[in-house]
């Protein structure tokens, strides 16, 4: 049993956590949900005693008869990894790239002096087998494993000493849905089998609903509501919890638009990548990332493209945008073939919004210059540049006075709105939204989805909406294509595909997506 009592943390005077009370019972799974910046991860780091420099902590973290907050660093080192294990979000960076996975798992055992080198290797082999990597030699390096496999290694490291408490901080957020389902199952099995407590930190209410016994909802460093999971979902006594749930299943209003003639078609599109030469004098190999893909998109239509990472979604997008050459087939936009000779004037009719609201802007440019950038595609840039920028910003709900500011002054949601303004500035007919809402919190995501729907109705825009998130695609598209290993395996009207999937892969994807049971949501729906 681990208990957090009136735990408060502030960093350089800014309060991060306020009076957090939370009990983590043995053998139980506790979910901690909240949006980014709510203090979820800080709670975990406070338990571990790994808060950043300058953090001031008060309250208690009781583990058995010890208060972790009052322990010396050497004693804490003996507890970390031994009595409390932790799994982090990013499997790609959480493992040391220059050490073998065997060394990294045995290190947990050796550092705590719990095994000799030989015993440690045996235990590591056992634990790796337990997490489903029985066939993977200990001598592998992290870069030779997939994201899901790396997360399994991280789990093996965390459970190697059979800790009392396992903390999993967004353990599946960076993974594909099918991998996520496997990893969540694995974590649940291990926790139940070994009788550990689990603190599962996530932003995803559906994951919490499917996994946890007890749920705590966090907002701005405070736990606003906590209780037994099913009861909490059914009663929803706190307005914030209700709002969160509502936002997570938000359905933007989309008046049906008459679908007109196709503005974009692809026929048998093939995109090959060169792979390294197998030997010095052999011909380079090739990898077919997009294999004979055909599609059409009508004016005013919204087309979804779903699939797991590496399926070729982004490669196809780059081909549509004319950023990469294709090796077979044709892509036609507005009656012209997309390629090196594609006229600039028409190019301004296709714009794109990317996933990362932080990386996709030049930090040294003003918002005006950022938003006005696509003007260079037009034969003669409009004279009323500032007015046009102001109009585009107003369209996306940003004050026109923002024009003279820099991008770091805006939040993630605002940045994504500015990215949409940049896409709107040339009055395009088609906007490609590449995971455009994936990095946003649910409430912000709901607002941006509303905005996307509103703009479509007002300007008669066509969208290609690329996402790994099935629920978002279901909410915002008319037709959907399911992509796997470079091929479109299923395509059709969105509702039809989701309610009656034909291809086994589509069925797998839908089954793997975590869902909140319908009857748990009654209260929230009627709120």
């Amino acid at each position, binding site marked *: 049993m681990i208990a957090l009592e009136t735990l408060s943390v502030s960093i350089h005077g800014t309060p991060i956590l306020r009076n957090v009370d939370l009990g983590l019972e043995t053998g139980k799974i506790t979910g901690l949900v909240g949006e980014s910046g709510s203090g979820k991860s800080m709670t975990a780091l406070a338990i571990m005693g790994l808060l950043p420099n300058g953090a001031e902590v008060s309250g208690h973290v009781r583990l058995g008869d010890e208060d972790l907050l009052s322990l010396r660093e050497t004693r804490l080192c003996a507890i970390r990894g031994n009595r409390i294990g932790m799994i982090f979000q990013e499997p790609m960076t959480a493992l040391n790239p220059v*050490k073998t996975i065997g060394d990294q798992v045995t290190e947990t055992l050796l550092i705590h002096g719990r095994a000799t080198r030989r015993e440690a290797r045996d235990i590591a082999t056992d634990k790796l087998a337990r997490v489903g990597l029985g066939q993977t030699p200990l001598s592998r390096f992290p870069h030779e494993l997939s994201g899901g496999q790396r997360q399994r290694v991280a789990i093996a490291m965390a459970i190697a000493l059979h800790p009392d408490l396992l903390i999993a901080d967004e353990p599946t957020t960076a993974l594909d849905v099918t991998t996520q389902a496997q990893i969540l199952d694995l974590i649940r099995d291990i926790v139940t089998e070994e009788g550990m407590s689990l603190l599962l930190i996530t932003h995803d209410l559906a994951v919490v609903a499917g996994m946890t016994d007890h749920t705590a909802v966090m907002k701005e460093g405070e736990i606003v509501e906590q209780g037994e999971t099913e009861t909490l979902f059914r009663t929803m006594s706190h307005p914030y919890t209700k709002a969160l749930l509502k936002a997570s299943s938000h359905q933007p209003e989309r008046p049906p638009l008459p679908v007109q003639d196709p503005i974009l078609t692809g026929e048998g599109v093939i995109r090959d990548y060169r792979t390294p030469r197998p030997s010095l004098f052999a011909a380079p190999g090739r990898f077919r990332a997009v294999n004979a893909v055909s599609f059409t998109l009508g004016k005013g239509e919204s087309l979804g493209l779903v699939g797991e990472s590496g399926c070729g979604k982004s490669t196809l997008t780059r081909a549509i945008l004319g950023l990469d050459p294709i090796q077979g087939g044709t892509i036609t936009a507005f009656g012209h073939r997309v390629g090196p000779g594609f006229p600039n004037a028409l190019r301004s009719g296709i714009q794109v919004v990317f996933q990362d609201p932080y990386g996709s802007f030049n930090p040294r440019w003003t918002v005006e210059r950022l938003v006005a950038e696509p003007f260079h595609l037009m034969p003669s840039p409009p004279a009323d540049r500032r007015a046009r920028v102001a109009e585009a910003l107003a369209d996306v709900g940003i004050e026109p006075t923002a024009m003279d500011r820099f991008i770091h002054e805006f939040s993630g949601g605002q940045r994504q709105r500015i990215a949409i303004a940049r896409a709107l500035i040339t009055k395009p007919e088609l906007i490609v939204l590449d995971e455009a809402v994936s990095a946003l919190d649910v409430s912000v995501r709901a607002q941006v989805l509303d905005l996307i729907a509103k703009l479509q109705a007002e300007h008669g825009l066509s969208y290609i909406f690329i996402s790994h998130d099935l629920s978002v695609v279901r909410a915002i598209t008319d037709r959907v294509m399911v992509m796997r290993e470079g091929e479109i395996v299923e395509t059709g009207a969105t509702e039809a595909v989701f309610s009656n999937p034909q291809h086994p892969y589509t069925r797998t994807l839908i089954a793997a997506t975590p869902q909140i049971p319908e009857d748990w949501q009654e209260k929230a729906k009627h709120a």
Partner: protein
Amino acid sequence: MLRFVLTRFVSLTLSLIVASLVIFAVIEIIPGDPASYMLGLNASPDAVAALRDQLGLNESLALRYVDWVGGMVTGDFGLSYTYKVPVSDLVMQRLWVSLPLAIYALVLSTLIAIPVGLIAAAKRGSATDYSIMGATQLGIAVPNFWFAMLLVLVFAVTLRWFSAGGFPGWDAGFWLALKSLTLPAIALALPQASILARVMRSALIETLGEDYIRTARAKGLSRRQATVRHALRNAMIPVLTIIGLQFSFLLAGAIIIENVFFLPGLGRLIFQGITQRDLIVVESLVMLLVFAVILVTFLVDIAYAAVDPRLRRGR
């Protein structure tokens, strides 16, 4: 790993061939006749003709290239025009001063820089860090010939621990020779160590912010253990790059220090070769230095792969 080494080796050989072609072509492109250029304006036609003959300039281009490369491979660099001795003898003499000096300076610089950079990174933002950063700034800013003269003044003139210059040769005894290289090596190492310590510090600070350091801490490693076991090796890539560059520079770039300490090194030989228009010496030395740079790059590449398994695949 073996395949990686082989691929790098092939690329090394190709680089050498290209470099030799370029150097050969440059000598050919020099306006006018190398022989009359070497002899100066007042040379008699007979002397020029004799030198042309000696240089083999009357033969075909391809044959001369093959001769030149073949000569170098067998250790025959030709005869120095000014010294009238085989260039290979000249170079070997000088190399026995410059190579040990470069290695000495590099070892000193690395031995100082790595722990200093490590301490600065581990105590980032502290007074120790600021003092180290200040000291390295000074180390980069101070001209090394001035620092060298200061060393001479203190350790040779005042304290009389070391001789003020000259090189007794390795025949005079290993320790004596090493002793005479000590002050020059320190003078050379100071700026290099300052640069390297700063690189080490910033590489380590970056690595310490990585997710796997947090993972290591969550496993129960102390800050020090996480730094030594997980951060250090990952921070070595940029450090190795700089070490490689510094070695190439130290081998031939020590001319000022060689002059301050009256050392018969490669830098002075090149300088003399250029001023006396001894093209054969210059040509051979340039080729030798290119070879050294390419070899060091090759070794650094191998070291990269030894440090980072992701680089071990042959490309």
